[in-house]
């Protein structure tokens, strides 16, 4: 999550904040309520020293306890009212925080479902995850709590000044002088404390990744015997962490006593100035005591305002990150007419969907990747009748996925058309096509959950029997049989508890259950032993039967049966034909093939 700790340097921009309004609007009634309740709390807080003043002037100085009971009752009632206000406003704030966070998370998540795969190719998952989770949490929390904290503190400070001026303007003026000093002090330190806290957080994530490496790389470290070296390196990191933490602590260690000192300075001024007024009978002693309370009382709120405003300003960075994600345009969109007829990914109108037969045609297609600077396909034409098997071969990184990406409409042609069943696929919805495609990846992705659930992902309404039948069809039942709870075994996060070969078989079963008309297989290069590979090959043959299939093949041996082989080199299709044709033609395919099998061929000749 290296992207997490971006610095914000930009100045305040209202435009960014305005984008929050649609999310906040549904809660305007709750917000108003919380606001009023905060006002009530602040008013009670202002009133409390006045009670003390009343007690001193009217009971102690007057030397009577008459009226003490009603005094106590009113006091108790005020406290009870405040307690009630606290209960209601914290409930309200919590509701705002959670619901606002929930709505923003949902908006991000839904939007991410619409974004193109090209976006995912360049964006790390951790980066997206921190937007959906941490950034939204922070925004919601700050809006629901810090914003009201600021308002409460503002009410309070203003109210106190009003009360003080009402009680004694001269003395009040002396206290007011402290405000700018305190604000500046807080702003200065706050900035530095924030900076150092960020440093500490950064160091903290470095420590976490150091542990991560130390653990993930434990086996490697052991084989290389570099444990001692690693430990020493870690000690440097943890040492830096210590230094940064102590630096951050020193700032607060200076700041807090300074604030306390200024608070005492105010009290001292009130005592000296107010005391002399009392001596000349210009001020009641109860009022002096109220003043002392106020002079001490306004310190915390003023600091709070300064602190929260700094925090709130830094929120802009979070808002920009979330809004940036929400404003990311999907590269591929259905036109309004298409949506009208076929529905969206979330509300499909399946009743209008034409059944798909599976013929694919590239008509005069040119294509260039959004981040590329030259065409990888140039006026390319190819007709693939329904039910045929197309193998795409070439070296790693030669661009074998391009055709598949186009056929599946993960990317759209820059020029020309891709026709499915004779019609440009842009005339139909993405979901229409995607619902008919079975896709098995080189590194198959399973979801955490049981084997059963994972296979059922192919068709959500499939019965257990259908799931098991699909598994049997591709020998995935052997995977389930080996597991402790059979089909009900948990496969772990991302299918971690299974080997690559096993995951592959399960993802085959998933594809079989979906019964797609078009099938895409990105063959695994990772080492699967020959026996499992044979199972996979048999399963592949079953899968391919009767479907239009694209195989991204790394092993030439698995593609002999393809109806058409496309040979890709440096992002371009350089040859096409059947295995036999291509071998006979002394082209690149033959070269590829010979490189892999040259030695065996020789030996075979010698042996023969």
């Amino acid at each position, binding site marked *: 999550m290296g992207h997490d700790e971006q610095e914000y340097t930009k100045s305040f921009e209202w435009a960014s904040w305005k984008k929050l309004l649609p999310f906040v609007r549904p809660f305007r009634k709750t917000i108003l309520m919380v606001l009023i309740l905060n006002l009530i709390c602040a008013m009670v807080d202002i009133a409390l020293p006045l009670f003390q003043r009343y*007690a001193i002037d009217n009971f102690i100085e007057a030397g009577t306890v008459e009226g003490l009971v009603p005094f106590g009752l009113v006091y108790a009632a005020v406290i009870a009212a405040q307690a009630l206000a606290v209960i209601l406003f914290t409930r309200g704030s919590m509701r705002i925080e959670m619901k606002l966070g929930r709505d923003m998370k949902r908006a991000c998540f839904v939007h991410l479902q619409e974004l193109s795969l090209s976006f995912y190719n360049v964006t790390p998952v951790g980066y997206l995850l921190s937007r959906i989770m941490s950034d939204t949490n922070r925004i919601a929390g700050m809006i629901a709590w810090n914003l009201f904290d600021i308002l409460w503190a503002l009410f309070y400070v203003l109210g106190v000044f009003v009360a003080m001026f009402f009680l004694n303007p001269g003395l009040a003026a002396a206290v007011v002088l402290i405000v700018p000093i305190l604000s500046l002090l807080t702003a200065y330190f706050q900035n530095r404390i924030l900076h150092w806290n960020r440093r500490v957080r950064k160091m903290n994530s470095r420590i976490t990744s150091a542990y991560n490496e130390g653990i993930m790389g434990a086996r490697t470290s052991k084989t290389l015997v570099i444990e001692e070296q690693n430990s020493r390196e870690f000690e440097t990191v943890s040492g830096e962490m210590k230094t940064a933490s102590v630096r951050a602590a020193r700032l607060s260690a200076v700041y807090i006593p300074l604030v306390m000192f200024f608070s005492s300075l105010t009290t001292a001024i009130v005592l000296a100035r107010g005391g002399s007024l009392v001596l000349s009978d210009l001020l009641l002693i109860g009022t002096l005591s109220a003043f002392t309370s106020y002079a001490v009382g306004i310190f915390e709120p003023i600091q709070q305002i300064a602190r929260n405003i700094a925090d709130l300003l830094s929120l802009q960075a979070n808002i920009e990150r979330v809004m940036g994600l929400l404003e990311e345009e999907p590269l591929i969109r259905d036109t309004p007419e298409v949506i009208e007829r076929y529905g969206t990914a979330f509300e499909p109108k399946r009743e209008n969907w034409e059944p798909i037969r599976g013929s694919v045609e590239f008509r005069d297609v040119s294509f260039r990747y959004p981040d590329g600077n030259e065409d990888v396909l140039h006026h390319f034409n190819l007709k693939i009748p329904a039910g045929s098997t197309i193998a795409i071969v070439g070296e790693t990184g030669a661009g074998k996925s391009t055709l598949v990406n186009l056929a599946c409409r993960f990317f759209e042609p820059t020029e020309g058309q891709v026709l499915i069943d004779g019609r440009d696929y842009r005339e139909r919805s993405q979901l229409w096509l*995607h619902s008919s495609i079975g896709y098995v990846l080189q590194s198959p992705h399973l979801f955490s959950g049981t084997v059963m659930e994972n296979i059922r992902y192919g068709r959500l309404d499939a019965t257990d029997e259908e799931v098991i039948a699909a598994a049997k069809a591709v020998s995935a039942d052997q995977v389930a049989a080996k597991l402790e709870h059979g089909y009900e075994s948990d496969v772990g996060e991302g299918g971690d508890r299974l080997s690559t070969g096993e995951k592959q078989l399960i993802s085959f079963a998933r594809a079989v259950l979906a019964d797609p008309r078009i099938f895409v297989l990105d063959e695994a290069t990772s080492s699967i032993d020959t026996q499992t590979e044979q199972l996979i090959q048999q399963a592949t043959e079953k899968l391919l039967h009767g479907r239009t299939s694209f195989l991204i093949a790394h092993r030439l041996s698995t593609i002999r049966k393809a109806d058409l082989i496309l040979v890709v080199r440096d992002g371009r299709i350089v040859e096409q034909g059947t295995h036999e044709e291509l071998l006979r033609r002394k082209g690149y395919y033959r070269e590829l093939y010979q490189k892999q099998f040259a030695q065996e061929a020789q030996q*075979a000749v010698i042996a023969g």
Partner: protein
Amino acid sequence: MQQTRKEHFALVWRFLKPHVWIFALALLFSMLNTVFSSLTPQVVRTAVDCILGGEPFPAPVQAALAAFPQAAGSPITLLLFAAGALLLVSACSGLSTYMSRMQTAKGSESFVKSLRDALYRHIQRLPYAWHVQHSTGEIIQRCTSDVEVVRNFVANQLLEVFRTVFLVAFSLFIMFSMNWRITLIACCFLPVILLYSGFFYSKIAARFRTADEAEGDLSAAVQENLTGVRVVRAFGREAYEVERFDKKNERFASLWIRLGQMLSAYWGVGDLITGLQILTVICCGVAEAVNGSITLGEFLAFVSYNQSLVWPVRGLGRILSEMSKAGVSIERVSYILRSEPEEDLPGALTPPMDRDIAFHHVSFAYEGQPVLRDISFTIPAGKTFAILGGTGSGKSTMMHLIDRLYDLPHDCGTITIGGVDIARISRPYLRRNIGMVLQEPFLFSRTIRENIAAVRPGASLEEIRAQAGTAHVDEAILEFSEGYDTIVGERGVTLSGGQKQRVAIARTLMQDAPILIFDDSLSAVDAETDAEIRASLHKAKGSATVILISHRVTTLMQADCILVLDGGCVAEMGTHSELLAKNGIYRRIYDIQMSSADRDLLAEGGKDPGGAQTEERGRV
């Protein structure tokens, strides 16, 4: 229970002990701070009673004033003295606050640093089997969140408890000396407040955990959706995914909203109790002041002592209940430190390693499942030895045993190098002399150069490039914009599987070890490069013994000897042609991997000039 408590304390003490003086100093300054702070109300009290109220000054003040005879007469000057005293007290207490905070920070950061270092070092030395048994996320959590809980326990909670107890005792002492009746009444509330908040936080802890877990759940669901985005799209499952997400999202929100309701009730009622306590003290104080038991100044001082008491007590309840949670974290951390690390027996040997490696009746079981069954064979020194076998046939386990990543239990046979049982050889020595490349090698997030030079940090760039050249990765590295200084991994460039494997090979070659093991370590490299690497390795290896594991017959066939492992037993052993002639497993695999029909076609194509069709190339 008592026993584990003791253990917990012992662990904390082990890391606390070197820094205990810093903590003692922190505590001392914090006590000083309490004492200084308690003087402020006394100054106010004296000012109110003696300067404004005309009562006689208490004896110590009178003594102090005697030094300024000219000022004593004027009340205004006396007020200024009082103000000055306030500032002086504040400066002293500020200074002790600073000192106490700094010492606390230094102490706790030193404490946590030594804990972190010890954990890291220990984890590095824990046996491989331990790492296999424990999930990375789990260990990391123990090293980060749990360590943080322990730090908080030592640095904040423990000190805070001492501090609060001292504050309460000291304030109560002053209050009792002023007026015991009101103090008694004020005291009545304190246990109520303490128990109320302590009880609440211990009750709500489980809910906090549930809510945190719900967040983790939600986060995991999002992460899975994002990593599996291609599958989601390919099956058109967007709506289904959103529905699943909604459930988790809603659960997370509603759990916290419910938690919020409980918290708000707690805060509200807590405020009410606190407020009533203060109200009671004010009312009683008023009554006492009116009947003359205390002066007005004492009343004011009383009220402010009382207020400085209530909040820390409320905090104490929370801290005490949270401290009980620290036990769990301490246990989780000490679990790691208690685990037995790898340790060489005294008198471990360092025999020459360029000798024959022999397995003598080796059997090995992993988690109760037998992996190797009574295996015996010899790998002659200086030869290339290849192993073929299916998934789970025990090939990798054999290599792990040679490198002593696992130790052979007693009565399970022995592995010898030059006749010496490897169990008696020093582990670091053994591993340094065995260069092992793993199938899924781990690269550290440093520069490529640092990665290759991991075993010899001082190596020159020439040496590094030479090894990278042998591993056929030099060119690929130079293509990166930063060349050898490119950072790989999390914070840098992502290498392809094949590139990683080749960098790992170069790294192992730097070890210059007499034994080299390639555990399927060219699986992600295409066959052509595989062949080239093997050719250059053959030149570079010198007299080293090489063990190769692979699924590719082409990789295995040139070895001096090939061993076929099946179900944990040696099924076949011999040279390529011997095994082909045997018509066994090896032959079957060979036939599957190389279709005879293709060999015919190739042979035929070799004779056929082919001609015209080559033009088509590049036109598409």
